[in-house]
């Protein structure tokens, strides 16, 4: 290096050397700077992704078996809690849900937004349920967030005194039962069932909450609803399994359906103590449930038009889904209604419980490789067909109902009326089993159409009975035996397999 203070005696370096020390070097410096910047940005990104992959969990609060407020659970599980809160959103699909419909709040009902009325959408339903509270007010379902207030304020509450039993599925009721039963869930259940609805509702604060499906210590799924525990015990007993305890005996995969099946089921209030009962002692199909109701002689109400001892199907999603191809393939409710969602590196069950049709990408395309349009079209195919059959079945049932009403007015001692009313009871329940089920046939498409076909047949049989024709109950034909496939003799080996 040259002495800094001494004048440089050397001549200027040749121009060729200067070219590389001047602008070229500046360009190189800028390029190196940019590369450094890029590499640093990439390094930071990789670092962040690595951090994501660590799935950090911070326990901020202690959760116990009495922590009912979901906001408290949300402190430990903020992602799940944020998703859960989204159930306030009001959207519709083709056959379900509703946009927010504004209304004028009244003293009796302070809600300023409600779901669309099904009775306005299909006025036949008023006659279909004539004499029952559902003919007064029946609206589209909306998100879990509204389950409690929508029940408190439905006009059905104003026409009949409902029991505390209803709370079982319209509020976060686990802690309420535990408190009412002094730590005994079933005792608390019995006690709350006997209360007036309004008194029972005053004990609850939240719609379905974390504690209703999760064990607060381990976060494992668990069943908290006595109705489901007892219903499953009766169902398993009918299949030869005694003493079934769903919390002890169900697999993790089954639980992903059972926690939903705690409430999305057909039920009735048994006896004067209004004990909530799931009618599964003979099986889960509509035929088994009908046979059960006939055996115990239960009716929801007496039809105002015909005097038939009629039944209202509630929302038999669990029963219907159990007959469908998805259940048979081992798919659970949560797989489509709470599909896994990627948040950073974490796989989170989407606690925004909603129609898979609003979330086809995560809900369907994980298994089905077809395009979103194709999958939507397949669902529409099923639902449009079911809707057509549902409309026919409602008309058929109403025709029979009116015919019985006319026969009663003409001659109430007509001995054929009783038998015709039994057919109306069946037609009504079968039709309602699909009408009240929240998938317009999708949960089990062929089963839905089979049920509606039977409903139309019951209406036909009722008419024939009323007019004195002798008709067989069911065609005598039974399904032919299954086909068998015999292996090629030259290749030998292999047992004869039944073709399914």
């Amino acid at each position, binding site marked *: *290096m*040259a002495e800094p203070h001494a004048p440089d005696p050397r001549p200027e370096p040749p121009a060729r050397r*200067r070219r590389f*020390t*001047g602008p070229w*070097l*500046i360009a*190189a*410096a800028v390029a*190196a*700077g940019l*590369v*450094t910047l890029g*590499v*640093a940005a*990439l*390094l930071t*990104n*990789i*670092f962040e*992704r690595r951090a*994501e*992959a660590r799935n950090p969990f911070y326990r901020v609060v202690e959760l116990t078996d009495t922590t009912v407020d979901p906001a408290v659970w949300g402190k430990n599980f903020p992602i799940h809690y944020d998703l859960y809160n989204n159930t306030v959103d009001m959207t519709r699909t083709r056959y379900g849900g509703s946009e927010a419909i504004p209304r004028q709040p009244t003293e009796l009902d302070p809600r300023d937004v409600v779901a669309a009325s099904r009775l306005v959408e299909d006025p036949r339903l008023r006659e279909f349920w004539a004499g029952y509270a559902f003919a007064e007010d029946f609206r589209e379902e909306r998100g879990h967030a509204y389950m409690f207030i929508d029940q408190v304020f439905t006009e059905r509450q104003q026409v009949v005194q409902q029991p505390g039993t209803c709370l079982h599925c319209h509020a976060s009721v686990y802690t309420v039962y535990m408190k009412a039963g002094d730590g005994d869930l079933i005792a608390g259940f019995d006690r709350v069932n006997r209360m007036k609805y309004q008194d029972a509702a005053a004990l609850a604060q939240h719609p379905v909450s974390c504690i209703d499906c999760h064990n607060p210590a381990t976060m494992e799924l668990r069943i908290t609803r006595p109705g489901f525990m007892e219903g499953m015990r009766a169902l398993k007993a009918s299949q030869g399994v005694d003493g079934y305890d769903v919390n002890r005996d169900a697999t993790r995969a089954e639980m992903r359906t059972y926690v939903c099946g705690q409430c999305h089921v057909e039920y009735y209030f048994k006896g004067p103590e209004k004990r909530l009962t799931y009618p599964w002692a003979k099986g889960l199909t509509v035929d088994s449930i009908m046979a059960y109701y006939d055996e115990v002689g239960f009716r929801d109400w007496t039809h105002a038009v015909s005097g038939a001892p009629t039944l209202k199907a509630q929302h038999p999603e669990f029963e219907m889904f159990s007959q469908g191809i998805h259940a048979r393939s081992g798919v659970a409710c949560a*797989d489509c209604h709470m599909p896994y969602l*990627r948040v950073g*590196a974490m*796989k989170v069950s989407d606690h925004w419980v909603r129609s898979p049709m609003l979330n086809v*990408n*995560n809900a369907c*395309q*994980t*298994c089905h*490789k077809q395009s979103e349009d194709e999958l939507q079209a397949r669902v529409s195919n099923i639902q449009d067909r079911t809707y057509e059959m549902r409309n026919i079945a409602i008309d058929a049932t109403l025709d029979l109902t009116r015919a019985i009403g006319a026969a009663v007015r003409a001659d109430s001692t007509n001995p054929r009326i009783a038998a015709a009313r039994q057919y109306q009871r069946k037609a009504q329940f079968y039709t309602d089993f699909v009408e009240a089920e929240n998938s317009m046939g999708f949960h089990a498409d062929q089963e839905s159409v089979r049920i509606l076909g039977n409903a139309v047949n019951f209406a036909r049989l009722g008419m024939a009975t009323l007019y004195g024709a002798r008709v067989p109950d069911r065609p005598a034909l039974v399904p032919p035996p299954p086909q068998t496939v*015999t292996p*090629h*003799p*030259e*290749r030998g080996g292999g047992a004869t397999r039944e073709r399914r």
Partner: protein
Amino acid sequence: MTKGQRIAAAAAVLIGTAAGLGAFTFVYAKGYSYLTTDPAACANCHIMDEHYSAWLKSSHRNVAGCNDCHTPHDLVGKYATKAKNGFWHSFYFTTGNFPYPLRITGGNKEIVEGACRSCHEGITSAMNHGGVIAPPGMEVQPAREEIACTHCHEYVGHWVR
């Protein structure tokens, strides 16, 4: 030190910094692992965690790793595919702009199909030339149109759901 030399020194420092940081990033991000055939390398980024763990439980885990199905079996094709997919996968994962669930597309699909047919040649060539023994009363026609193996055998590699 002349002005030129000072600039050269500064540039050298910057280039050295870039090189050093680059080397650190390469090691930190396990860049060297991409030159191996270890399937764990493909799950360096957590986006492939599910595929990797599904592969660990699959029927192919003892006979074929990621590269056996997802890269061509010739040396040039293998590294060209690694380079191309490596760049685009990193690009999309870094920017976060990609659809999910992940789907295999285009050329990568063909590579997988080729891999099935290369290892299972005995079966696939028989299928394509009518060499299959017919069930009684039926004749086997040579395939008019070939369909992808994974159309039916989609579970064999890594079934993620």
